[in-house]
């Protein structure tokens, strides 16, 4: 029997792969939900995840005032305190990501949907004027003044332009998504305390072995990630299938026009959809910091691309597909890097995607949120 790393450490790779895959899956849900409802790839979703990791950082280091080290040791907590702290940090991370996602929709996407939206037109006008003024003047204060002065006439022009309920072309949404993604991560990279450097998050949890399975030690943080992700996905499934708003989400995903005729407030449903995706990403972000104890302004980028891959792998628009795609991707990456070496990790993920799409162009589970009974 060859002494490959994968055979010696198969179960260990499985556990860590499932944990990583759970995080992919949670983030993938955000891509899939928004795609299902708007047929839009929300490329800025990766930054919603990043915002969540900073929410977790803020919650633990600022709100709970937990230092990185206490007398040279990790600030471990135990028992009830630990549970309450973890739940609190997760809620704050979810809040950050949830609000982030809703604001993103409001600023970057809703104006393009062309509802004659005054707020959107004003924000868009301000940004246009600000960016154009950057070309001519290199002083932030003056830029802001110019932008403020120009906001009124430009927003008036936008309002006129969008008045007939005209929707921007599909490409505009994509560009808006990419722009918002860069803007959010750069803003954190420029304006946050340590700028572009890495941030350590306080390590509250002593990462000891919880139990041993198939001769492999299962660390407590991995167990929390997997169980936490499963709980969140169950909650999401219940919400989508059992609540009124959840039914609205499914209805809009399947037929937006008919939903409106039946009285579903589509704008509200879109907000709910972004919020759901954001909350899932926030939960994923907290779980991520639990395992890796760190974050950075661009932490979302690769993870976002991978999660998007996971969503496509499982069949974008399909909630179960996001789960399956995420877990598969996490496992394949882990096994693959054990066989070929860690440097091949990202290559393996995308080769798998290509091969799957060759044989199943709509992903493993195929149908969209629309057709599937989620």
């Amino acid at each position, binding site marked *: 029997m060859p002494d490959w790393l994968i055979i010696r450490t198969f179960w260990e790779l499985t556990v860590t792969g499932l944990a990583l895959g759970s995080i992919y899956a949670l983030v993938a849900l955000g891509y899939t939900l928004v795609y299902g409802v708007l047929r839009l790839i929300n490329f800025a979703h990766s930054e919603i995840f990043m915002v969540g990791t900073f929410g977790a950082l803020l919650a633990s280091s600022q709100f709970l005032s937990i230092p990185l080290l206490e007398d040279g040791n990790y600030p471990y907590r135990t028992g009830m305190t630990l549970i309450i702290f973890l739940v609190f940090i997760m809620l704050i991370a979810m809040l950050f990501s949830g609000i982030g996602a809703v604001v993103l929709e409001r600023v970057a996407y809703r104006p393009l949907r062309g509802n004659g939206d005054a707020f959107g037109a004003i924000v868009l006008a301000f940004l246009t004027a600000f960016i154009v003024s950057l070309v001519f003047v290199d002083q932030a204060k003056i830029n802001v003044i110019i932008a403020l002065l120009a906001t009124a006439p430009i927003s008036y022009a936008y309002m006129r332009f969008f008045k*007939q*309920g005209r929707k921007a072309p599909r490409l505009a949404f994509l560009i808006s998504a990419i722009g918002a993604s860069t803007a959010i991560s750069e803003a954190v990279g420029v304006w946050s305390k340590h700028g572009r450097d890495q941030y350590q998050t306080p390590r509250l949890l002593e990462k000891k072995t919880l139990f041993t399975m198939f001769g492999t030690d299962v660390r407590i943080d991995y167990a929390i990630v997997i169980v936490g992700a499963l709980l969140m996905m169950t909650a999401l499934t219940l919400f989508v299938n059992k609540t*009124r708003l959840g*039914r*609205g989400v*499914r*209805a809009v995903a*399947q*037929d937006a*026009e*008919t*939903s*409106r*005729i*039946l*009285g*579903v*407030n589509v704008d509200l449903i879109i907000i709910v959809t972004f919020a759901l995706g954001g909350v899932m990403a926030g939960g994923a972000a907290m779980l991520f910091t639990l395992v890796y104890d760190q974050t950075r302004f661009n932490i979302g980028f690769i993870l976002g691309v991978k999660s998007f891959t996971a969503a496509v792998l499982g069949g974008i628009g399909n909630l179960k597909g996001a789960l399956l795609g995420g877990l598969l991707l996490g496992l394949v990456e882990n096994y693959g890097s054990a066989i070929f070496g860690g440097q091949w990790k990202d290559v393996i993920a995308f080769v798998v995607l290509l091969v799957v799409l060759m044989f199943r162009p709509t992903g493993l589970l195929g*149908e969209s949120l*629309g*057709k*599937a*009974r*989620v």
Partner: protein
Amino acid sequence: MLLEVNDLHVFYGRIEAIKGISFTVGEGEIVTLIGANGAGKTTTMRTISGVRTVAQGSIKFEGQDITKMAPHDRVKLGICQAPEGRGIFPGMTVRENLDMGTYVRGGNAAEKAADLEHVFHLFPRLQERITQLGGTLSGGEQQMLAIGRALMSRPRLLLLDEPSMGLAPMLIAQIFEIIKQINSEGISVLLVEQNATQALRTARRGYVLETGHVVKEGSGQLLLDDPAVRAAYLGG
């Protein structure tokens, strides 16, 4: 008047699809809009439901101006539509599709059960199919489901857009029978049809639409007997 449409203008992109039409639906009436493809019938219906923006003119429901009202508020007032092409949610069961009719109204479980009972009384087929996915129903069943779903909202005015489209003659007759039955329970109906003969026989009054204008109006019988209408829409 229950519904009063006055000098309505609606654009579809840059094209003016509705060029100033006026019509009314009285309490308890069945009124039909007939006309060829592209005459603006469906646009009119969608505008009444509030999913198309009015460029000019007004829509009143029971005297209240609803021209700019959001679609869900119109459903609340009692305007509900079975749209063109039925608009069944393919991934929802028959039961879930029907529940979408109560999305705005809410209502308690007992009320919903009673409404469901009523819909199943009109369309026994739906009860047999209750756990089946909407996308797997036949065309006729989907039409029944679309009408049933609209009824679940307890409408005062039921908008039916081409309910006979793509159905076998026997089913068409059945659907029109049911429309009369619904109307006899006090629900007013605005009916858009290409099947002009059936529509005019069922309706009390009718309007003929041509490229965004109302070119003729009158009682159903009057339009049935009109030689120009016969030549254009009733096949001689």
